[in-house]
């Protein structure tokens, strides 16, 4: 059995009095494509935000590459991770956001080049080369010198993917990346994700409402409901053979 690249062990998360996640256990193996589906407010996004260190779990452990993400050892005791520890562990993780979050003061090319240059301290020529390759891959070679405000939503999201890919993550997180797009722009973004899923061997976690798409590319589908993983399995198992009523109801609403 291959060791998981990401594991959640009994992870809980509350915002104030609101318990969003009530015990998540989860293993993701290298190169595995996982789709998280479920009703709004079920905590899907919170799962990947904790993995990206944007949100701290209330309790439980998240293990990335064998290292505890949110806790570190200090004088033989486990204590809350500091910034340095978080940076060391999250280096293999990349994320694409619902609202793109491109850097508006940088050109498309600069958006892609900044992190490899400053975070990984790579050489400028190599970074530029790789950024241009990635931008070509997402079909935006002709936009490299433009600013994000000059792009459509779909184009922005493709830049965001190129920007994440240039960092060569082993785990890519997609947070409802098509939810903020006009309907006619969704397909071009999904096409890029499909391409990444097929040709790259990184693990992917997709939080999505694009049900057919998720079921198409995912090795594993998780149905999150009321803060727990209510159902999981291959797409076929989850869609066709689950007896979970809430899941059937949820799918039915999407199929209607």
């Amino acid at each position, binding site marked *: 059995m291959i060791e998981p690249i990401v594991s959640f062990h009994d992870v809980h998360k509350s915002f104030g009095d609101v318990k969003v996640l009530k015990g998540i256990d989860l293993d993701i193996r290298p190169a595995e494509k996982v789709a998280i589906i479920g009703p709004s407010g079920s905590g899907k996004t919170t799962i990947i935000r904790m993995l*990206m*260190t*944007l949100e701290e779990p209330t309790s439980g452990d998240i293990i990335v590459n064998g290292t505890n993400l949110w806790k570190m050892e200090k004088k033989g005791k486990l204590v809350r991770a500091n*910034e340095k520890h978080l*940076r060391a562990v*999250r*280096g293999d*993780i*990349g*994320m694409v*956001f619902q*609202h*793109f*979050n*491109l*850097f*508006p*003061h*940088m050109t498309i090319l600069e958006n892609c080049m*900044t*992190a490899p240059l*400053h*975070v990984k301290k790579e050489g400028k020529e190599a970074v530029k080369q790789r950024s241009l390759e990635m931008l070509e891959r997402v079909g935006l070679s002709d936009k490299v010198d433009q*600013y*994000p*405000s000059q792009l459509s939503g779909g184009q*922005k999201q493709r830049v*965001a993917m190129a*920007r*994440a890919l240039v*960092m060569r993550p082993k785990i890519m*997180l997609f947070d409802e990346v098509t939810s903020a797009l006009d309907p006619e722009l969704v397909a071009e973004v999904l096409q890029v994700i499909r391409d990444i899923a097929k040709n790259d061997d990184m693990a992917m976690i997709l939080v999505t409402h694009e049900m057919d798409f998720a079921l198409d590319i995912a090795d594993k589908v998780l149905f999150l409901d009321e803060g727990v993983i209510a159902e999981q399995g291959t797409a076929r198992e989850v869609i066709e053979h689950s007896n979970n009523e809430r899941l059937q109801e949820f799918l039915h609403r999407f199929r209607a």
Partner: protein
Amino acid sequence: MVHINAIIEIFPDLAKGLTITITVLIGAAFFGYLFAFIAGLCRMSSNVFLRKFTGFYVEIFRGTSLIVQLFWLYYAIPMLFGIELGSNWWAGVIAIALNYGAYMSEIVRGSILAVANGQSEAATALNMSRFQRMRLVIFPQAIRMMLPEFGNYSIQMLKATSLVSLIGMEDILYHGNIIRSTNLSQAPTVYLLVLLFYFILALPLIFLTRKMEAFSKKGVASG
């Protein structure tokens, strides 16, 4: 009445005050921006003492009159505490800088807070350190919001420099007052010229502010 001859006579006398007005402005602007950044960043610090202390400074200096602050620095503090700022130039510069620094610190703080949270999150997702997030992502966007405001405050600082004539500095207004007191009938000509001097000095600042506004519009629209 305003006479051409009088203008020709008065003009060179007023021009003697230019050096003081301009050097006080440059000094006050330099330290003003410096205080603004220090105070603005301190007010966002996680250190409670630092936050409260700078909050206290900002409210005191925003809430009291600049002239009184100037007199405190020049007359009262040296007597009370034996702290000499060196000269009336320094007293003027530091008073204006502290006062406008307090106002502008709010602009620094507000601009940094106004950069969308998603920007910091995207930078975190690219594994930037806290310092890199600030330097590469937040600050360049915040500064675009600050610049036009800084331009406006620079013009206000120029006008505020005229207060240093009250602590015996020989700036444009000081020379104007001298001329008027020796030749009362020239008052309209003198003060018209004084206004003109300040306006001409303000022109490059107005122009610069416009430039900065145009620069700011580029590249801050939501990404």
